[in-house]
């Protein structure tokens, strides 16, 4: 582009350039995030139909409407998988956030040098990929290798971390281990943004550390808690890598253990991509509804409090 009038910057509206800067991002965003959704919705409305006697004829892809959805929603194991991740989330998310909040508040009481080291230690697991974390914890769960089992065995306990009743909570432990430090850091960031004057005012009013924590810090880190809670809900619904890796050593983890696993095995083990697409769409919708629902619940509560 050559402009003959070089010294007329006012005339060339700079605001129009906004789209030039936005275009590269928007192009990939549309292609790799938005388009797949519509493609999945389209695929979820197809099915393979076999004609001829015994269904041995030429397979043909035909329009199926909402048939895949109704079949998926009638699969007991698929519905149960939602129940399982929901139960998982109801326990795991509060435990993790409580741990994150407690650690953040406690770190606020120690000298900076210690706090920095501790913070980094708690945050470290976030840098370890979920599947590698699962491989590591898997070794710590398996009798024979696990030092935890050795120590508990010496004390007379025989824990079965991978049994039917426990495996869900063993996975919860892995997820807490991975993300508690990350969530703690978000809360710490919010704590740091609280103006110092508030603390001084509280001290003049005679507030102790407990009162300061409950009356000032926790209410003020609420936005961070809401944020971490939403991300945790979305993450819980998508639970996938941890159970998939544990499947090898824990027979309790079935192919329908979580909704995501169920969709994955439909696509790659049962070669039914149309059903897999329908299940992905259902999962995405449920995750969105839950996170938006939680957000509006929080907002309504906030409004009524004012």
């Amino acid at each position: 582009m050559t402009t003959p009038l070089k010294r007329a910057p006012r005339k060339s509206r700079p605001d129009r350039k906004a789209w030039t800067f936005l275009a590269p991002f928007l192009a990939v965003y549309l292609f790799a995030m938005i388009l797949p959704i519509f493609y999945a919705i389209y695929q979820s409305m197809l099915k393979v139909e076999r004609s001829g006697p015994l269904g041995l004829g030429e397979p043909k892809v035909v329009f199926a409407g909402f048939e895949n959805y109704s079949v998926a929603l009638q699969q007991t194991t698929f519905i149960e998988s939602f129940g399982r991740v929901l139960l998982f989330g109801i326990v795991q998310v509060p435990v993790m956030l409580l741990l994150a909040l407690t650690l953040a508040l406690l770190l606020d009481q120690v000298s900076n040098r210690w706090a920095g080291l501790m913070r980094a230690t708690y945050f470290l697991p976030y840098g370890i990929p979920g599947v590698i974390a699962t491989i590591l914890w898997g070794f710590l769960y398996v009798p024979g290798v696990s030092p935890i089992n050795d120590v508990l065995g010496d004390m007379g306990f025989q824990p079965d971390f991978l049994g039917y009743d426990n495996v869900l909570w063993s996975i919860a432990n892995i997820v807490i281990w991975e993300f508690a430090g990350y969530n703690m850091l978000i809360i710490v960031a919010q704590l740091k943004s609280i103006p110092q004057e508030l603390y001084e005012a509280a001290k003049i009013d005679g507030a102790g550390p407990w009162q300061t924590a409950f009356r000032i810090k926790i209410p003020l880190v609420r936005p961070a808690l809401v944020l971490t809670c939403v991300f945790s809900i979305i993450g819980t619904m998508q639970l996938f890598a941890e159970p998939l890796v544990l499947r090898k050593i824990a027979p309790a983890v079935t192919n329908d253990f979580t909704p995501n696993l169920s969709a994955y095995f439909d696509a790659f083990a049962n070669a039914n991509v149309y059903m897999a697409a329908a299940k992905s769409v259902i999962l995405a919708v449920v995750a969105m509804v839950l996170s938006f629902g939680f957000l509006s619940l929080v907002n309504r509560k906030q409004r009524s409090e004012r």
Partner: protein
Amino acid sequence: MSATTTTTSTTGEQTTPPAKPVRTAKGPRALRPGRIVLVAVLTVAALYFLLPVYWLVIAATKSNASLYSSFGLWFDAPQLLHNLGKVFSYDNHVYLQWALNSLLYAGVGAVLATLLSAAAGFALAKYRFAGREAVFKFVLAGVLLPSTALALPLYLMFSKLGLTNTYWAVLIPSVVSPFGVYLCRIYAESAVPDTVLEAARVDGAREERIFFTLVLRMMTPALVTVFLFQFVHIWNNYFLPLVMLSDDRKYPITLGLVTWKEASDRVPELTQYTIGGAFVSVIPLAIAMLVLQRYWRTGLTEGSVKE
């Protein structure tokens, strides 16, 4: 920055963390029971978070046999270098290939994601145009999209386009970071003054030049954060490469190690190689986490303060 206040005179455990650490008199405080409980809780938490990593360090030095026969939390005839040599040479140096792939996916993906986010965030922060808020909301919706639920639809689409089992299949989705755009917008709003942009325009600089020479530099702290987050996000990703790639020479480390782990039923020494491979991939990242800690903090503050 708050000027250091009168926290020195605290009688309780009220040492709020100001910019400078205020060293208070240690004597009476060190012995308070509350203080001991505090330190104990923090230490127990640290042990919990370090346990698997500590186990990994010990296990990486053991032979396959002593992995099962010796106590997991202490050394037994260490042979770390021998083990690592085996990890790297096994199956025609496939581990090295995986490591390079991981670096390629995460490195290139994160650089491109950062640049795209910076440009988009800057545009949303500093230009006035019709549809600006609509675009921003549209991008924000992407933050709430469940990314693993998207991997399967992406696979269906990419297989139609013939893109599966290529490097592109993992790279293209990796350069999108709606959260990065959000963070860059918020940061640019406060860190890029309009007066500087105006001055550069008066001097005749074109918008592209202003962006690449001035704006990017002013946004550096936010860009480092976006880069780190995206790097870790891609590095940790498992579902996307799992569905996209079938050729094990294109695998990232995560996928490769799981393959080894699953094959260890048939090839017992792969158990030790899985542990060695995990050790090699975890240690550099752990060091990076510790060193780059302050960048994570600044970025998250930027992200959550505006909530």
